[in-house]
């Protein structure tokens, strides 16, 4: 069991342009009206990097920037964990298409954009940060896997962590093998001690048990629940409503990850 403090939230998804809107939706103060969002501008990147960056990275950076902006830290003061199940589908598609052609000519930019830690690399360039960064994957358990990694770093390094989870729909024909219908990115700044703007204290426990998880928030319309990153929302719903209950995140066979906002003031 580990306790970490939540010092900032950022998110972006259909009808959820930022945490403020999402918070109102999750509190039942506003209807969720899923609408396509414009492509995030990745404004924190230098212009030459911005031209080359993949869409999934734009989404990840948008959430990350919002969360850090809302926290009491600067972008170059936090270590990072980037959690994505599937990375960048467009990049994968173009690479596989090129590799199936007789010439097999691969774009060098596409190749470096294909690494699972692409978003982390661009973030560290944009933030001018030399802090540690881990990128990981847990398939449908990706958000929980990212949370346990970030929380254990907060706990054992006493460091401020930025956790970013994101996934975007795959283009065809890959969509058929991984049907994530909606894009979503979320970012949490997690810290070892409460700060003036702290939103919650989360107790995180891993224990033996079935993989059954808590329900997805009913206030959210559309097909967000098939996006692994959106499984941060059951936890964020508790935080938005200032409720002290436990949520079970989608995790692994035989293992449960339980997060419980607890009193800290």
């Amino acid at each position, binding site marked *: 069991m580990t306790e970490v403090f939540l010092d900032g939230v950022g998110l972006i998804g259909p009808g959820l342009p930022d945490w403020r809107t999402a918070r109102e939706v999750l509190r039942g103060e506003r209807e969720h009206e899923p609408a396509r969002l414009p492509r995030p501008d990745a404004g924190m990147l230098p212009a030459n*990097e911005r031209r080359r960056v993949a869409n999934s990275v734009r989404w990840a950076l948008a959430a990350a920037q919002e969360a850090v902006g809302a926290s009491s830290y600067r972008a170059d003061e936090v270590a990072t964990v980037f959690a994505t199940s599937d990375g960048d589908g467009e990049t994968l598609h173009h690479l596989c298409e090129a590799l199936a052609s007789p010439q097999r000519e691969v774009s060098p930019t596409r190749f470096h954009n294909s690494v699972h830690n692409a978003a982390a690399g661009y973030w560290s360039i944009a933030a001018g940060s030399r802090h540690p960064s881990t990128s990981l994957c847990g398939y449908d358990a990706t958000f929980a896997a990212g949370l346990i990694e970030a929380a254990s770093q907060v706990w054992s390094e006493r460091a401020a962590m930025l956790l970013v989870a994101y996934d975007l729909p795959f283009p065809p024909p890959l969509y058929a093998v991984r049907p994530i219908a909606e894009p979503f990115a979320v970012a949490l700044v997690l810290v070892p001690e409460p700060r003036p703007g702290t939103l919650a204290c989360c107790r995180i426990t891993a224990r033996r048990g079935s993989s059954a998880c808590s329900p997805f928030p009913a206030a959210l319309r559309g097909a967000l629940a098939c996006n692994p990153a959106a499984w941060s929302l059951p936890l964020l719903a508790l935080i938005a409503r200032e409720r002290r209950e436990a949520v079970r995140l989608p995790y692994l066979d035989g293992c449960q990850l339980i997060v419980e906002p607890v009193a800290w003031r």
Partner: protein
Amino acid sequence: MFAALRESRSGLRPNDFETPALETWIGRVDGLEHEPVTGRLGEFDCRNNRLARLGLRQDGFEDAVAQARERYGAHRIAVLIGTSTSGVHETELAYRQRDRSTGALPPDLRYRHSQNIFSVADFVRRYLELEGPAAAISTACSSSAKVFASAHRLIEAAFVDAAVVGGVDSLCLTTLYGFGSLELLSREPCRPCDAARDGISIGEAAGFVLLERADSGAGKIALLGYGESSDGYHMSAPHPEGAGVRLAVMQALCRAGLAPDAIDYINLHGTATPANDRAEDAALHRIFGAAIPCSSTKGWTGHTLGAAGVTEAIISALCLERSWVPGTLNTRTLDPSLRSRIVLSGEQHPLRHVLSNSFGFGGNNCSLVLGMRA
């Protein structure tokens, strides 16, 4: 592995992977084509998971994990595996068989169990019948060094009592042609730190380590320190002075509570690209001067990418146990502009502490300090 190190036997050969059109050398594991994963875990069958299974079956590892399972319980052991490309080769092959009219992929592509980055960690967890937390860490070529740091923290934070860490990366077209597109592939066996070095040789490998709490184990190898950093500089080129590398190495020393002169051997990342070896040398020379023997073992294994960290951690452990400093295979003329003490041939030498470096695309750096427990 150790015999090959002692006898200077390289595992590299001219590229004969799949339909070889690229003129380069590779480190290919024989026989994977003919050993499918079948039975209970059959849906995980792909080159990467075949390689993982082969690795798990070596050196009594499965037995050691079974004993740990008895000791701690399956749910108290984590699985953290580094990989850069997992089973992407299955998707590469599926793209050759798309439906001509609809563009659809063949229905037998099992994305979750092959290409998805988590596939290999999922496979290892199920194969070893473990039920603790798990993840696949994918930070390009530092992936399977990072797993040591993450596992250490999971144990520190008491999420688990032990962890299976490892790295598995297998040959695929993405990395062969990708590194080719960046003009980073050597046309001959890679020559780390050579004046005429011209790039990497890609290898494949699976390596696993069981990490437990350090309250016992005299004569065992211990993870004494780790350091992690980002360059914040460029996606595919290292910081020229190795600024991030220096940070990772300094943190690893600091965590281990060791001064630079307590390190007896440095296993370099040493990929044999001009830029990597230069940047790594610059960073190390500022910390260690020219006193500590350094070498790259990629002339034996090739660059095993997401498996490089654990491969070289295991090599470092073997060297600690056998008091051996390996040389730098294939290298003929040491680059005179490199200032660290790079050794070309192996030497018998008692070792207390070894540093192992791994760096990846996106400017992701990780250094480990290993030592023998007294």
